[in-house]
């Protein structure tokens, strides 16, 4: 900024530089999420204004308008994506803190996990198949309640499209985070452990993120549910798909 008029060449060079470095899209990812978070707060923390949904919509709009490919975007965003692994490991912390309660509720947890996990796969594939979805779409849909990296791995294994699965997983998460409070209030499920566990099985980490915002215990059970359902879905989906 020395006051000289910016030449088109310089601007082109600047754009080329920014497109090559991960910095721009990493910054954009955090900025879009920060905006989503702000909007969520501004709406009185309403579950209907989901910060992930806002961030994704904003980023897709920017990428499409600037003619940037997803591959270029991911060069920068991969650093955030990578943290999904360590964050999963970190679930051991709330798990340890609430270990006695978790152990006491082991039987209800495992019963709910088994029923919930089968329901998630069968109902998604059943409804989509009944409405005429293609086989590739069905295979991409089957693992949608497992957390992103695991669902993508399952989709690849059974012949789905991993990147489509990722998108479906995120939408599932957002829907669950939006619906959990009104749905479980209507069903009169008043227990925090049960509420957290349900949103974790149905809507993995995004559901858990919502649960952690509401109540620590609900968040803990949502985290456990997400880890257990990732495991069970990985075992269940290849088996169920074999019967289709």
């Amino acid at each position, binding site marked *: 900024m020395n006051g000289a008029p910016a030449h088109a060449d310089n601007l082109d060079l600047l754009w080329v530089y920014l497109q090559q470095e991960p910095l721009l899209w990493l910054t954009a990812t955090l900025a879009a999420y920060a905006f989503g978070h702000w909007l969520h707060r501004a709406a009185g923390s309403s579950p209907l204004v989901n910060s992930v949904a806002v961030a994704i919509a904003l980023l897709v709009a920017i990428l499409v308008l600037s003619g940037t490919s997803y591959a270029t975007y991911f060069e920068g965003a991969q650093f955030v*994506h990578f943290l999904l692994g360590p964050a999963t490991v970190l679930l051991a912390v709330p798990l340890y803190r609430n*270990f006695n309660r978790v152990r006491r509720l082991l039987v209800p947890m495992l019963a709910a996990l088994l029923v919930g996990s089968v329901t998630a796969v069968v109902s998604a594939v059943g409804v989509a198949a009944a409405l005429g979805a293609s086989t590739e779409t069905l295979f991409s*849909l089957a693992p949608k309640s497992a957390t992103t990296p695991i669902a993508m791995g399952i989709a690849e294994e059974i012949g789905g499209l991993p*990147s489509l699965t990722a*998108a479906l997983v*995120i939408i599932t998460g957002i829907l669950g985070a939006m619906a959990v409070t009104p749905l479980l209030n209507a069903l009169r499920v008043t227990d925090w452990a049960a509420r957290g566990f349900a949103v974790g099985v149905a809507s993995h980490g995004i559901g858990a993120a919502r649960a952690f915002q509401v109540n620590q215990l609900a968040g803990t059970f949502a985290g456990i549910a997400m880890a257990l359902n990732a495991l069970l879905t990985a075992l269940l989906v290849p088996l169920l798909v074999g019967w289709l």
Partner: protein
Amino acid sequence: MVHAILALLVCQLLGEVIVRAAGVPIPGPVVGTLLLLLALAALREVPDQMNTVAGAVLSHLSLLFVPAGVGIMLHVARIRAEWVPLLAALLVSTLLTMAVTALVFFWVMRRMNLHEPEQQP
């Protein structure tokens, strides 16, 4: 902070190595979670550093899903063609799964008299 982050990465790395060496279809980070849980049980407490990292990351867990979610832009054509079955499947399945899971959990918990009445939302 450094030690907590190192511990996390070591647990994840060991998890990935164990899963691959054993050839089991379990996600590596899930094994990493179990390893960290064992480590915390051995320490008999959560170190302050680990508490700090856990608080920071778990309160913004949903940020980590943004990059994968943006991948939806690769599938605009398919979603436009199949939006009815996709939307119906996601809505029905997510709501049904959540309802069924919560009700089974709550029902079994009450049957076993494990309910804590002071835990009202």
